[in-house]
């Protein structure tokens, strides 16, 4: 299969990030058009990419400039990449569509789109790259643009949140850079495939574990694993809603979960059989995230802040799925990446819609919006049922597979915890539905109206995909998530595909 489309995931948004300001000088609204067109092209491309893997090839490799792997940068597109890229660009497209009207509140429309495109560059770049330093660069591109977008509203709270996010985020970046430096000192190359071959002959020395720990710190900050989470509940609610949707939906998963699992499984060759301690650590911190995130979410009174804590809790599910380390556990975790991307993206969009209509996110001040905004209300409700793990929505299957994985590995307490906190999830998400949408108090918010059509279309798009992913889980598991889990499970076998052996 031809791999020539792979660099387009980076090139298209990168080019448009610089074209948007140019064209916006000529015609303000061209920014909307270009950004949405790029979003649609990227989404189409990611679907095309996923389909092109269905024909049987395991990995598509693109060598930049035709250089040999140990010298040049390699881009690799396997099932795992396809899955993540699909999530990024679909949520990205819906967020862009939503932004068209949402940005009426803000000035500097083209700045928003340019930064948004840069985030897409970073996320797609991290997903397709096969090079360690390249990974770091793309991580930082995404991170730096997200710092700016969190502070996009330029109110006191937003600037403060953006600043805190930046400081903590850069600690993570520094940790990753340190780890890469140590790795380079040891392996003399940064191509993932070559590094992984070197690592195969590298003992489990303290230095090895130091590198692992430094990577883990960096990725843990990016994914907001408890106790590295503190920046997220400030940052995600402060960002404009489409950005929150992208940040909570895919950002933390690509920079955090995807990058970590790629490095740990495929580059360092860790697996439950040879590094049980590492996997137990993932489970331990995953449980901590589920519990702390879930309980804190229950205590929130701010619509978006509650959703932000919920993201921390749901990241915990992905972590325990990976930590269980068997086929079903990893399938569950990867499926949850998809399900949570769609579901949480949707919920943040509804938050944006409510904020757009009422000007507030305070659950104590909102009520009875269902009468005025039925599409938003029901999108929220069904999306939250998906996240909680209720069939026939996508979230059901991720929780289900994780529980299957846990019980296959005889981790009974983990399965019980996962099931129990599904109820907690249900509890705090329904709390928002009740307060904001279905409660009928006397104080009707004045002049609240249903969101404009494009915003509704963006929300319904995500909702429909959530249902499609739930009802049609079979082809997705068979063709995409299952092979992606096998990519992780094959460990060092990854290098063979890249190097063409």
């Amino acid at each position, binding site marked *: 299969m031809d791999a020539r489309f792979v660099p387009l995931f980076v090139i298209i948004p990168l080019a448009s990030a610089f074209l948007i300001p140019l064209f916006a000088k000529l015609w303000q609204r061209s920014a909307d058009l270009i950004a949405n067109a790029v979003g649609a092209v990227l989404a189409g491309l990611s679907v095309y990419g996923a389909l092109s893997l269905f024909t049987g090839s395991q990995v598509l490799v693109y060598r930049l400039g035709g250089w040999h792997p140990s010298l040049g940068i390699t881009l690799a597109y396997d099932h795992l990449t396809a899955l993540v890229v699909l999530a990024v660009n679909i949520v990205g497209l819906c967020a862009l569509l939503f932004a068209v009207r949402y940005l009426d509140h803000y000035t500097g429309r083209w700045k928003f789109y340019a930064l948004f495109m840069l985030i897409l560059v970073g996320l797609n770049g991290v997903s397709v790259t096969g090079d360690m330093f390249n990974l770091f660069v793309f991580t930082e591109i995404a991170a730096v643009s997200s710092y700016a977008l969190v502070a996009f509203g330029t109110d006191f709270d937003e600037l403060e949140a953006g*600043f805190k996010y930046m400081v903590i985020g850069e600690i993570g970046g520094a940790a990753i850079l340190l780890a890469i430096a140590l790795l380079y000192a040891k392996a003399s190359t940064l191509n993932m495939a070559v590094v992984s071959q070197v690592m195969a002959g590298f003992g489990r020395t303290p230095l090895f*574990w*130091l590198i692992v720990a430094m990577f883990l710190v960096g990725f843990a900050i990016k994914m907001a694993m408890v106790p*590295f989470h503190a920046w997220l509940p400030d940052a995600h609610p402060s960002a404009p809603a489409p950005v929150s949707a992208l940040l909570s939906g895919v950002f933390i998963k690509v920079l955090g979960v995807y990058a970590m699992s790629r490095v740990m499984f495929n580059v360092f060759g860790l697996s439950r059989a040879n590094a049980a301690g590492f996997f137990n650590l993932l489970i331990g911190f995953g449980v901590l995230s589920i519990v702390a995130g879930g309980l804190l979410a229950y205590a929130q009174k701010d619509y978006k802040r509650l959703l932000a804590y919920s993201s921390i809790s749901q990241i915990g599910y992905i972590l325990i799925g990976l930590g269980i380390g068997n086929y079903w556990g990893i399938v569950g975790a990867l499926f949850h990446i998809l399900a949570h991307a769609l579901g949480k993206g949707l919920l943040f969009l509804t938050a944006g819609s409510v904020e757009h209509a009422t000007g507030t996110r305070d659950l104590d001040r909102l009520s009875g919006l269902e009468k005025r905004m039925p599409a938003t209300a029901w999108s929220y409700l069904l999306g939250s049922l998906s996240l909680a793990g209720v069939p026939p929505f996508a979230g059901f299957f991720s929780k289900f597979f994780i529980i*299957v994985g846990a019980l296959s590995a005889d981790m009974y307490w983990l399965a019980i915890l996962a099931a129990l906190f599904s109820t907690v999830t249900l*509890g705090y998400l329904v709390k928002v539905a009740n307060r904001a949408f279905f409660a009928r108090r006397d104080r009707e918010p004045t002049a609240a109206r249903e969101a404009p059509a494009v915003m509704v279309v963006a929300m319904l798009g995500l909702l429909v995909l959530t249902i499609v992913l739930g009802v049609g889980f079979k082809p997705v*598991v068979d063709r995409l998530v299952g092979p992606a889990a096998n990519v992780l499970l094959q460990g060092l076998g990854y290098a063979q595909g890249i190097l063409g052996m």
Partner: protein
Amino acid sequence: MHTFVLMLLVPLAAGLLAYSVNRLRNEFSFIGAIVALYYAVRVFIQSRHAEVSYELARVAGIPVALRADAMSGFILLCVAGFAVLILLFSLRYMRDREGARGFFFFVMLGLACSNGVLLAANLLVMLFFWGALLVVLYGLLLPGREGSEKVAAKALVIVGLSDFAMMLGIVLVAVRYGWIDMVPSAPMPLQEPVAIAGYLLIAAGALAKAGSMPLHSWIPAAAETAPASVMAYIPASLDKLLGIYLLTRLSVNIFDITSNLAIRNTLMVVGVVTILGAVMMALVQKRIMKLLSFHAVSQVGYMVLGIGTGIPVGIAGGLFHMLNHSVYKAGLFLSAGSVEMWGKTDEIDELGGLAGRMPVTFLSFLIAAMAIAGVPPLNGFVSKWMVYQGVIELAREGNKLYPVFLVAAMLGSVLTLASFLKLIHSMFLGQRPAALARTREAGFAMWLPPVVLAAVCIIFGVFAQIPLQGFVYPSLPFFVEPIGTWQPVLATLLMLASLGIGLLVYLFGTARRTTAVRTFVGGEMIADDEESRVTGTAFYTPVKHLPILDELLKYGERGAFDIYNWLTGALRAIGLISRQVVDRVLTALFESAGAVVRLAGRGLSYIQNGSLPLYAAWVFIGATMFLLLLALR
């Protein structure tokens, strides 16, 4: 397309159509339900003697298949039948209510999901549809009086909790024994811990759906806010049918409940506690719907008790009671709905004397009430009688507890009768309050369903062999001995004869010649007016003053036995503790770390804005933990 697929798609399509069009919405859903009923009848006939199965797909070795046998055929028929009757009633009842649009959609969605549950060939497929019913539950409970959204959330969390427990149980069993067929060739013994844990977890889901204690508390809460047709659809018929269906499948087909005495006793204790606890609460209620809803809980106890006996006749009794309960409880909710609609209230105090105004409703309510109280020869009596027989049979096995179960079950029956006497008196007899002077009989669409249901109560009682031979016995994989010495037809004739003699005595005897005098108390004539009206609410207030019981009832009224209150209370407590205590301790700890940072770098001192050093400190502590755990082992 295969009939099974149509049974899922047709109600769904009808529901979507009814939701999206503005006019004729009721008619669309009604037609959809009729079509579903037609398919149900077809499946029922096809599957009576041989099971029909249909495989849709296969995921990682798990067959996604649908299948119908005698039991699912029987219950499919019931579900579709109730949906048709309730929709017919709702044509008028829901017409001008807010939320009618959602109501018709969710009723049809509920029908589709229930068909899925009943047609599922294995536990995974069953779980899929079972869970989807959560949406239906929430959606149906949302419209209604003030506060309905809280009730909907409560129901969602309680039933959600049990659904997740069930998911855990199903996966637990599946990982150990494979994806279990709903009807395996032979039931598994309940001996291994995995099997027992799986059974208990799945049964918890089934019991919560059916509304058994301690997972019942959303039902009475729903009664306060939800419209009558929702109550008749969800807690009265659909949930009972599905919950008891699953419990029977689980106890008879999948596992062999007879192999574990402890589990049987547990189930029976749950049953008896449910019967008595809920009926006590019912006695002291002041609102019709709430009173009926406590009976909807109480009656589940009989079904659980019957299945818990593990004796064939008891299990058959439990299953038959499920059918009977759905019939009379749906009838009761619907007739009460008519009364409520015309009376504009369901407060017992404000009703009375409606028998003359709404004779048809009165008669159907009376028959259904007699049936639920277990008055022979109605259907409720027959199934309770079978349950009792099952309990008595326990004696042969040497179960020392059986007298307790038997006495408690009979006592429950007596108390049920008592609370319905109160209800009938205060709704239909006694004096009519002035506000109800213009009340009249509801229209055809509203009285027909209760009348049909009341007729079914009589037929299933007098000719009990019809439903037993037609529905119940073929569903069970074992031979059920004929029910004792009870000859329903003969007994009915004898009863009718004695009633006839009584009537003759009344007509020709002295009893007819009564003298009516005006009420005379303490030297004062009391006018026959609003002020001196005797209502029924106070009938059983003495119950409230019994020692021990009064305390329990008081707590019960306040929601002390409500598992939802326990859960949310625990969450709130944890939230409070974590905010007040843990956060403060952590802040204190990290502030000292922050001080170190502040001293260390002058540059950093500019960016001290409260909690950032705290965040950073967390990161460093986490990093240290990673290093300790990974590198320095």
